[in-house]
């Protein structure tokens, strides 16, 4: 079968799968799977025969993990979902991130309350990762507006980077056995100390596999005008690290606002990075005019991309996992909105078109060629 492009779309009312030929001329939509149930996380696992995963987090009946082995034509529950031991005292409230691990079947899963689980059998059984779940900081983290979530897992050999809201960036250099807070240069706007050891509201972290040590972060910005204790803290929202996340520096100057949720790196160029700046009060694009912003020099300067997007009166939010990019020769960006639109930006965001305009509010978008 010719290569196909698959999108998994997690929404407030279930998961959808969109499929297209790699020319991306038309997309066929399937779903909803887990209808009516919020899906905050999906994963396309391409290591062997493709497997699709979707979290299904029912406020009534609890957390499930769904798996598809037929490219998203059907989903079934795995044998179990992550769960805390009974004597731990915590209870799973949501599944925020799914990532592939080593080998063919290892999976990692970030949850709310902020914790990490690992599966060695493709999601049928799960073990807590005590190095972060029982970290001395873990009971001191505070929930952000979306909950106390471990939403980002970035693996880089023996290094594991975690994004926790609000806990900050945690780094393991021993494959996930131990973690330490690694937030030098990562600002916080909601505490008197602008640069605490931990407790930052990291929104997303991204890396490029061919740029060792480099990471990009969308942090909770929007504190330039703060006049309380600790003073204003401009440009803390978009950051870069060149030392494997040990320290971070701002690359926000040039953006219309440093607040936003997702951050995405071009698959073929580690210097090209995308953010969606949002006004902190409304969490929508400045002036109601949606635009992505792209840097082609690692964050030194930024340019606005909006061709094809609405020019006014658009007040949607793009959530932290609702933007991604495919790995085709001329990659396309995809972002989903809280108003249920799924947009595709061809040629790295040069031209946008709306693929679907009336889905449920979108939490998560992933893409892969299968």
């Amino acid at each position, binding site marked *: 079968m010719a290569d196909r492009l698959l999108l998994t779309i997690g929404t407030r009312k279930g998961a959808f799968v969109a499929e297209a030929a790699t020319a991306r001329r038309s997309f066929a939509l399937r779903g909803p799977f887990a209808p009516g149930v919020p899906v905050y996380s999906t994963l396309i696992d391409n290591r062997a025969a493709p497997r699709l995963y979707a979290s299904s987090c029912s406020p009534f009946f609890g957390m499930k993990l769904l798996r598809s082995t037929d490219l998203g034509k059907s989903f079934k529950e795995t044998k179990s979902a992550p769960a805390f031991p009974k004597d731990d005292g915590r*209870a799973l409230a949501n599944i925020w991130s799914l990532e592939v691990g080593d080998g063919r079947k290892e999976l990692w899963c970030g949850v709310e309350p902020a914790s990490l689980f690992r599966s060695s059998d493709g999601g049928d059984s799960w073990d807590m990762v005590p190095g972060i779940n029982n970290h001395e900081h873990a009971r001191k983290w505070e929930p952000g507006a979306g909950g106390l979530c471990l939403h980002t897992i970035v693996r880089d050999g023996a290094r594991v980077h975690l994004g926790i809201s609000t806990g900050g960036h945690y780094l393991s250099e021993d494959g996930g056995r131990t973690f330490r807070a690694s937030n030098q240069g990562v600002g916080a706007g909601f505490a008197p100390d602008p640069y605490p050891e931990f407790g930052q509201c990291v929104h997303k972290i991204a890396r490029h596999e061919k740029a060792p040590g480099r990471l990009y972060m969308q942090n909770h910005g929007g504190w330039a005008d703060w006049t309380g204790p600790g003073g204003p803290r401009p440009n803390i929202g978009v950051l870069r690290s060149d030392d494997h996340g040990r320290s971070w520096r701002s690359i926000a100057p040039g953006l219309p606002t440093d607040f936003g949720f997702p951050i995405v790196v071009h698959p073929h160029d580690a210097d090209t990075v995308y953010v969606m700046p949002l006004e902190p009060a409304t969490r929508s694009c400045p002036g109601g005019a949606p635009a992505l912003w792209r840097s082609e020099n690692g964050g030194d300067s930024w340019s606005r991309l909006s061709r094809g997007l609405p020019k006014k009166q658009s007040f949607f939010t793009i959530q932290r996992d609702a933007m991604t990019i495919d790995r085709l020769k001329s990659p396309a960006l995809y972002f989903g909105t809280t108003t249920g639109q799924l947009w595709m930006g061809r040629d790295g965001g040069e031209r946008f078109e709306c693929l679907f305009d009336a889905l449920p509010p979108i939490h998560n978008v992933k893409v892969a060629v299968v």
Partner: protein
Amino acid sequence: MLRATEGTLRTVAMAPVVKIHLPGPLRPYCAGASQLLVASGTIRALLEDLEREHADLYRNLCDETGTLRRHLNVFVNSDHMRDLNGVDTILTEGDVVTFLPAVSGG
């Protein structure tokens, strides 16, 4: 479909037999049954029976700490459990215990 659990068979002589009514989304977790018969003296004991005999169903009703899920309502006949004695509500022979998701919108 009505099913009796193994626990019912073991404890029927000591505790009242009550009927559990299950909404559609929960039936896949007990082989499609819409009703179960259990012998339990309280809601708490009923949940403990379900944890032993229908672990998959139990995980839909209670979280890892054993707490009933927040947006799930439990009725004994026509009365909400919270208006009785919560999980310590005493059950009597022939009671109907109904698990229902809370009304929600959006």
